[in-house]
């Protein structure tokens, strides 16, 4: 961690985005995580993605659970409301917040301990419901805050810093998300910002349950040889299926690629995800194939990254519930209270 306070004043030449903010306006407090922590790279990618997307910082609500990863929302988007909830239960709190106001952008930040162990149930159910959110799992295979115990995503046979071998089968959150009905599923690596930032941009714009499992090495407790979540291991075994460009709704599509290597996926709101195929046979709109592809590669010890699945016709929870367009938290007594006349009728029917 660094103890040097960030200067408040910004250099006047800093570039501003369409809504008038510099990249610095998307920063938060100084991180208290260990120097070299993958999570800090993810925070930097979030800052970059939000700035590039021209999102007004206060229109984002950041929610998290408990753990190293869940502390990070304090370190980006400092003008946004954040909520550090209880361990493994961020999804339910975020669901409630989303029910209250459908107009904000919801970012859920969690870790592998938070989502794959104590919060596995809520992880699964928030996907099922299609809550319009971006769910980030900062996945390092280890409990950092409690000093190095295995988490449920640690691979079988991988070794802890103390030399213990993990005997339990790992939980693959990407596969679970696909099974549970997430409509945008990706995997990234904190050490590959050029891949991660576009994934974040596309996920934030996706109108449905978007999840990105981000391999994010724990520099202190899980970056040794024998670990399958170390920087070296992930770099050596990373199999990116595609490279992504995300084109928001209003932008003209100008990218120029050779025929055959580009897939354009137009989403429900009109925005377009452009994918440069790195694996010729990979189709990110085929959910069933995605699952077997991930498993086949996992069996070979490879970590598949990139946009693994997107459903262009994703529907969110509010659409399924049929709620009004106006956020529920802005409705007053005039819209909500049926009044005394209606109550008299109800009384009459109860006699």
């Amino acid at each position, binding site marked *: 961690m660094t103890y040097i306070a960030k200067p408040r004043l910004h250099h006047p030449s800093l570039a501003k985005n369409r809504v008038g903010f510099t990249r610095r306006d998307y920063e938060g407090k100084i991180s208290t995580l260990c120097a070299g922590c993958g999570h800090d790279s993810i925070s930097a990618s979030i800052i970059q993605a939000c700035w590039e997307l021209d999102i*007004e*910082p*206060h*229109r984002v*609500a950041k*929610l998290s659970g408990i753990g190293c990863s869940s502390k990070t*929302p*304090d370190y980006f988007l*400092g*003008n*946004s*409301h*954040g*909520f*550090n*909830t*209880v361990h493994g*239960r961020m*999804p*339910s*709190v*975020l*669901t*409630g*917040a*989303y*029910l*209250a*106001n459908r*107009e*904000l952008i919801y970012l859920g930040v969690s870790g592998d301990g938070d989502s794959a162990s104590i919060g596995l*149930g*809520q992880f699964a*159910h928030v996907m099922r*419901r299609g809550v319009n959110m971006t769910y980030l799992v900062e996945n390092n295979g280890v409990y950092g805050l409690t000093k190095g115990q295995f988490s449920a995503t640690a691979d079988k046979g991988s070794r802890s810093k103390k030399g213990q071998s993990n005997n339990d089968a790992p939980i693959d959150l990407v596969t679970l998300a696909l099974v549970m009905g997430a409509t945008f599923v990706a995997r990234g690596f904190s050490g590959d910002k050029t891949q991660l930032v576009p994934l974040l941009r596309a996920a934030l714009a996706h109108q449905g349950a978007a999840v990105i499992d981000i391999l994010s090495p724990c520099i202190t407790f899980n970056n040794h040889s024998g670990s399958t979540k170390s920087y070296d291991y992930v770099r050596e075994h990373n199999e990116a299926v595609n490279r992504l460009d995300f084109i928001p709704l209003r932008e003209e599509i100008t990218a120029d690629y050779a025929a055959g290597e580009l897939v354009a996926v137009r989403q429900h709101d009109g925005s377009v995800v452009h994918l440069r195929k790195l694996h010729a046979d990979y189709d990110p709109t085929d959910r069933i194939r995605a699952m077997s592809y991930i498993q086949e590669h996992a069996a070979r010890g490879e970590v598949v990254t990139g946009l693994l699945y997107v459903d262009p016709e994703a529907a969110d*929870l*509010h659409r399924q*519930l*049929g*709620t*009004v*367009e106006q956020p*529920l*938290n802005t*409705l*007053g*007594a005039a*819209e*909500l*209270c*049926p*009044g*005394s006349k*209606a*109550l008299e009728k*109800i*009384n009459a029917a*109860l*006699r």
Partner: protein
Amino acid sequence: MQKIEAINDFVVKFANINGSGSASANELFARAILRMGVPVSPRNIFPSNIQGLPTWFEVRVTEHGYLGRRGGVDLMVAMNPQSWEQDVREIDPGGYLFYDSSKAVPRSRLRSDIHVLGMPLTEICNDTYSDSRERQLFKNIIYVGALTTLLDIDPQEIEKLFGEQYKGKEKLFDSNLQALNLGREYARQHLKPIALKVERRDRVGDMIFTDGNSAAALGCIYGGATVCAWYPITPSSSVPEAFERYAKKLRTDPVSGEKRYSIVQAEDELASIGMVIGAGWNGARAFTSTSGPGISLMAEFIGLAYFAEIPAVLINVQRGGPSTGMPTRTQQADVLACAYASHGDTKHVLLFPEDPYECFEMSAQALDLAERLQTPVFVMTDLDIGMNQRLCRPFAWDDSREYDRGKVMTREALDAGSDFGRYLDVDGDGIPYRTYPGTHPTKGGYFTRGTTKNAYAVYSEAGADYIYNMQRLRQKFETAKSLVPLPVLTAARYPARFAAILYGSTGPAMQEALDALAEQGIYINALRVRAFPFQNEIADFIAAHSKVFVFEQNFDGQLTTLLINEAHVNPASLIPVLHYDGTPITARFITQEIAERVARLNVRPLREHMVA
């Protein structure tokens, strides 16, 4: 042999097998009496089971309007061989047993001090109907028919009820009426008359007949709840179900069909309270309903809402505990679990409704209190109120009433330069200001957390910050005293040394008991506590009496403990009187307990105006 004689004041108990369709026939019986202008108070006493186990339906007929359980049975309608022994035993001497005599019952299984009325119901059904389902369903209607003859219930009222129930289904109307008349005719020809009678009166007035769970749901509609998150659990599931029913009618845009509410059936109670807290944090009024086991599961989240100061409303329809306990029986056994829910030093606001009217009132009020106080508020109802239909005052709403959204700092206030400290006590009442997420691009944002923080919501483990926060929370709880409903006093006709404290569903039985005691020359002041934190009025009331009986429907005397802990009253002056077998407390139990205890305290009614 003695014969119980009563007009409009008796108890009929139906012993049935659950899943046999008896509940609707028994309800029909109760409603017919109600339509004759005579108050009734029915209670379903049912098993945690769908089909095949014993179930009872008790109807108190009460011209005086005593809506609590009286205790004792004057007429038993014994339709269940499984529970026969117990049912026959329960009849008061001189009372009546009505049973299905298709199969002969040996004299040894009857009693000589009761009047027995046998009717070969199965035989009649088998002769009349060929379909097995019809045989079962119409058997219930046939016995209701026989009872109308025996008790002088006007058959036209039942006919009218059939008309309402089977509107547009003439065939069903006709067949039900036929079954009713079959029963009436048999009773007229074959059964000896009995001395329990219903006579037409005008004692129901404008009262309504509904259950507490529906009333609580309606209170949430009127109180402006837009988010309901829940997980099914007996006896609370009918709260969200009623909320959905009412919301469909009252909260759906007539043109677009869009909903001004949302309901999510969560994966468990942890998720349901999590959703309520997320919605409350984001400025929507939200509630969940649950029962004891759900409260245990929610405890961690309740602590978060308390410490991070987020509005939440929990309707706790209490059942018998501990653990899974008695899921379909009633108790008031979650008082302490809710008052102190979660680890660390926590305290929560509790409201105690006594009937559906107060379930409506207090649920709506809870939504105001939760936002005003920025904290969880519990509506502590129970199975007896929640799942039984009860006569009560009609619901009322003042159209000039506005929702109290509490202290919310707006974009305008932030722009005007207001000092925003999320946990800063600016008004001296312990209640800080909050902002809704998304209010302002550069001001008013903060990080909500369950960890300790300073007055500006910045993470802090500094002792001074922690102490400031805890003392402010205590101040806030003090403020709550002035906002929660006051206790209700029922003063005795003469100055009284002894008193009773009661709460929730004990109310109606206490009313009857106080009258009965007064007739014996025992005068008792009664105070019905309606909320926690306790106001000074409660401590003053206790101090003004030498002994105070605290009536509770739990085993540990939980309100007594809370009174000693929180109202700092003299423990020696409190005598807990506990009814905890899972059935609703009865007027006879209260009367007897008080009479005996007063006698034991060596007080005899010498001169009426001087004593207990």
